[in-house]
């Protein structure tokens, strides 16, 4: 059980980077960008090919950022200069990327099992410095010695990396360019009248969004030990699930709060899926269905809860008023009696 939760926490924090990308397009730019399904794989493909050919894994991971940025920019160009509807330009780019990803990889699957990835390097550092045994010793003390994780390195490094990306995103959205990007998603006409080129801003915003998605894909490939051309299917829904769950549970008061909520949403989504898959009659093929159901629940329950709260409040108010009138009536009655 602990191992399963630990694993989903680890995956959740890596997928959170993808979710932050989806947050940028879906919420900030108000652009439902389906490129994500393709650009996630593009990141994985670029990194896997480079690592398989002996390149430095850290360099390969960074390059995935640029590949994703290019893919996102293409979607933006299709929408702004090509004047293609936003959903359609994302879908077109997603389909195009499927072939491009196959070209990059040369085949449909690249295993990374016996190669040096960013995570195997981190892991060896953590083993050598004894940080792993320190944490594991702590776990053994609380009686979890039979479910020790292989390494703490991935989790700790990824928490740091994801938080760094969160803070950079928060900062960026407060800069002059960032404000203009937010306004592009909020009120295009207004920000154009304030001399901002909304076309460039949409292209830039989608580029950054898909850069994060591809980065996340590159890391997932290294964590899972393979890149596969089909690994991105349904990724946009997982991203949306994380954004929506996070916002519903942790609130959206400020940008900083919302980005943190999105990370939380991604982790919770992973944990829920892991728990769901432990149910006897469900198997891994049901995962997409589970995802869809989670999103539906996350979208509908807040409204249902809100509605029932409102009803309860109104009933309470009505009861109070009835009681109050009954009381005054009773008093009048008593007064009449004493008079007679």
């Amino acid at each position, binding site marked *: 059980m602990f191992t399963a939760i630990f694993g989903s926490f680890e995956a959740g924090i890596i997928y959170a980077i993808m979710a932050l990308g989806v947050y940028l397009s879906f919420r900030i730019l108000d652009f439902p960008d389906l490129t994500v399904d393709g650009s996630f794989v593009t990141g994985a493909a670029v990194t896997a090919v480079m690592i398989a050919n002996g390149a430095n894994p850290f360099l390969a991971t960074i390059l995935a950022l640029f590949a994703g940025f290019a893919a996102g920019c293409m979607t933006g160009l299709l929408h702004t200069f090509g004047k293609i509807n936003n959903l359609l330009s994302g879908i077109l780019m997603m389909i195009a990327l499927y072939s491009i990803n196959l070209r990059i990889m040369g085949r449909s699957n690249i295993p990374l099992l016996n190669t040096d990835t960013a995570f195997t390097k981190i892991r060896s550092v953590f083993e050598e410095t004894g940080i792993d045994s320190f944490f594991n010793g702590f776990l053994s003390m609380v009686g979890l010695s039979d479910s020790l994780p292989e390494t703490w390195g991935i989790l700790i490094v990824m928490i740091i990396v994801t938080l760094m990306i969160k803070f950079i995103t928060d900062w960026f959205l407060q800069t002059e360019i960032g404000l*203009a990007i937010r306004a592009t998603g909020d009120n295009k006409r207004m920000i154009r009248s304030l001399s901002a080129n909304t076309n460039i801003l949409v292209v830039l915003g989608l580029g950054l969004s898909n850069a994060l998605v591809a980065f996340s894909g590159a890391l997932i490939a290294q964590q899972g030990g393979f890149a596969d051309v089909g690994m991105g299917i349904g990724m946009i829904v997982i991203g949306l699930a994380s954004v929506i769950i996070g916002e519903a549970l942790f609130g959206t008061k400020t940008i900083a709060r919302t980005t943190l909520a999105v990370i939380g949403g991604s982790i919770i989504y992973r944990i829920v899926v892991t728990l769901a898959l432990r149910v006897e009659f469900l198997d891994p093929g049901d995962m997409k269905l589970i995802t869809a159901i989670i999103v539906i629940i996350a979208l509908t329950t807040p409204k249902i809860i809100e509605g029932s709260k409102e009803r309860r409040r109104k009933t309470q108010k009505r009861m109070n008023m009835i009681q109050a009138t009954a009381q005054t009536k009773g008093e009048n009655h008593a007064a009449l009696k004493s008079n007679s």
Partner: protein
Amino acid sequence: MLHLNQIHKIFNEGTPDEKIAIDQVNLTLKPGDFVTVIGSNGAGKSTLMNIISGVLVPDVGEVQIAGKDVTSMSEFKRSKMIGRVFQDPMAGTAPSMTIEENLAMAYARNKTRTLRRGVTKKRKEYFREVLETLHLGLENRLNAKVGLLSGGERQALSLLMATFTEPSILLLDEHTAALDPSRAELITNLTKEIVAKYQLTTLMVTHNMQQAIDLGNRLIMMDKGQIILEVNEEQKKQLSIEGLLAEFKRIRGTQMASDRAILA
């Protein structure tokens, strides 16, 4: 400051819906001129505004701002020189962003946007100062989301955002039409104050004849895409609603079409 030369614009050219929106319009605004524009619906007032701001490109003719030919310059580039307030109070501000963030975006209008922080301490002080001139207490609500403000407050903020960078041209497109009478009066007074303070060259479209007469130093009347009447500074001082309506009847031979224009 603003010069329109032989502007001509046709919508849906070559179809049965063809409509001449602007017909050979010439107009020159000197620096500091405040021109009010009246005319019934479909007279071409808004089209004229859109041609000046670059939303529409004229079929024929030339637009010059501050001596520069901007006829084919894109809308966002031209916006560096033009401040605009729309009729819809929701149109001029970003609702999910705070007052200070909205002001920061307007502040960056005539500068290049960079990766500097949009709202700095120094700017905050400045924003507070300019907000005080609205007398609405907004200076104490810098962190409030603009979507929470009332229509009048949002329109006042839009007006401030359009003007405090001192643009070459200020375009007001029926900016008080969607407000209740008391709010409309407030915005009208603020407009008067702000235009005088910055000496802005202003073009204001309105349906309200009294407002058109009270504000500004010149008045033009449009009908069917043409400027049919120009009232200069001297004549405008003696102008009344009755006088304007009589003038319209004299030129066109019919009553002014819009009841709204008369009653407003």
